[in-house]
């Protein structure tokens, strides 16, 4: 384990940025944190998490797939893909780090999504352990340990120091890159922080939320539940939950007519939208209830069924915080789980 005094963090950022593009969470105006490209003088946010998840780095909201240039009767096909440059994301939380694994199991299986892979291969993830979880956190429900975050490098921040531990080859490379600022140390402070954080985790409002009632093979049990109507009653059909979610990975492919060609791009889509998976006959899910059910059944039943009981939720709590009508996966799990218990 390595250590750097906290006041030297800016030097570490500067050193990193010399070699690779660095992104850190920083406070935007109007009180939200977001990942931004580091530049001299930028302050790292003290907020627990960014408003948007870190999935943007690998799966951006819009991405050019292919361009067609039309001149007269000639159509040129242009591949806009470029080899991505190396970059470092600093300060990813354990929940977001876990979400990358979930995205990997969608995008990196055959047929491999080369756009995603390109970014994924060039990104080094430095995670930061949580010490002040918020009331909306429930990552422990999905067996994530926020005191021991995954990622290429794990970091812990205490009052006076930041500690680092490399987990992967890419991580070792990063540690080597900044080694001039680091000193080796034992992890006594880190262990103390872990104990303290775990105590807090036990006191969180959702500490006892269990995922056991869900998982593969439960489709029939929950699909016809009368509870869906009540749960989805107030749903506005906006895409907030899907867009802030680190694991939502649905996208649409669209063409944009530039006047002198066509840009084919993909963009995030939301199962909450009326034109999601629209076909010749329309959206297969006609009511908001069906769309709402799809989202949660996917996270809690369909996805685990297809991916070795891994849930497509990491308990980051963003949907809990951001939903305009405060309806979220926790409420769904509690309501349906209660029914199961009966």
């Amino acid at each position, binding site marked *: 384990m390595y250590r750097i005094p906290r006041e030297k963090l800016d030097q570490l950022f500067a050193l990193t940025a010399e070699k690779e593009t660095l992104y850190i969470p920083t406070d935007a105006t109007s009180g939200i944190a977001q990942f931004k490209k580091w530049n001299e003088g930028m302050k790292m946010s003290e907020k627990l998490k960014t408003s948007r998840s870190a999935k943007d780095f690998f799966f951006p909201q819009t991405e050019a797939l292919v361009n067609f240039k039309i001149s007269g009767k000639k159509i040129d096909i242009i591949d806009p893909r470029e080899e991505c440059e190396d970059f470092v994301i600093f300060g990813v939380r354990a929940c977001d780090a876990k979400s990358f694994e979930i995205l990997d199991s969608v995008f990196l299986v055959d047929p491999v999504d080369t756009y995603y892979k390109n970014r994924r291969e060039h990104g080094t993830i430095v995670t930061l352990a949580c010490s002040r979880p918020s009331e909306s956190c429930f990552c422990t429900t999905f067996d994530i340990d926020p005191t021991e975050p995954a990622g290429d490098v794990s970091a812990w921040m205490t009052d006076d120091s930041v500690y680092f531990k490399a987990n992967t080859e890419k991580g070792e490379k990063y540690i080597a890159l900044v080694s001039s600022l680091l000193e080796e140390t034992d992890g006594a402070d880190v262990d103390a922080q872990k104990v303290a954080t775990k105590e807090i985790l036990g006191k969180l409002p959702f500490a006892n939320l269990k995922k056991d009632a869900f998982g593969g093979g439960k489709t029939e049990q929950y699909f016809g539940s009368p509870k869906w109507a009540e749960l989805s009653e107030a749903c506005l059909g906006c895409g907030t939950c899907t867009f802030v979610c680190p694991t939502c990975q649905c996208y649409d492919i669209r063409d944009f007519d530039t*006047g002198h060609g066509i*840009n084919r791009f993909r963009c995030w889509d939301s199962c909450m939208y009326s034109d999601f998976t629209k076909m010749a006959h329309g959206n297969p899910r006609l009511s908001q209830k069906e769309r709402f059910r799809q989202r949660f059944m996917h996270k809690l039943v369909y996805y685990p069924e297809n991916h070795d009981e891994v849930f497509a939720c990491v308990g980051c709590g963003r949907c809990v915080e951001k939903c305009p009508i405060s309806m979220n996966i926790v409420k769904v799990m509690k309501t349906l789980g209660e029914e199961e218990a009966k």
Partner: protein
Amino acid sequence: MSMNEFKPKIVAFCCNWCSYAGADLAGTNRLNYPADVKIIRVPCSCRVNPMFILRAFQRGADGVILCGCHPGDCHYTTGNYYARRRMTMLFSMLDYLGIEKERTRVEWVSAAEGAKFAAVMNDFVKTVTELGENKRLEDLRCKK
């Protein structure tokens, strides 16, 4: 004239009954106005909704002008009164967003005012040329 001189692209929405006829008259009277002005004929100035103006900018216009019958002379009696309010609101909003207010304009040109049409276009093209390229309401994908 140097090759690099900036030639603005101007979209002019002209109502069928007055301004388009005014443009015609300018033509038959051989009055000069820059070829940078592309006229789009609409049945009434009231047909133009804010989306038209924004879309023109998106597709590369550097200035957009709306021409209609003089207030009181609308072929449909009141169309241009509505257009007047709409455009006032839209232009004010664009200004509020920091987009140059000189890039948009409304002029009332009757079928008899060929000379006015040419003068208005000359003046508008000059104004927009001075402003330079539209950067604030551009869509980079539409650039060549």
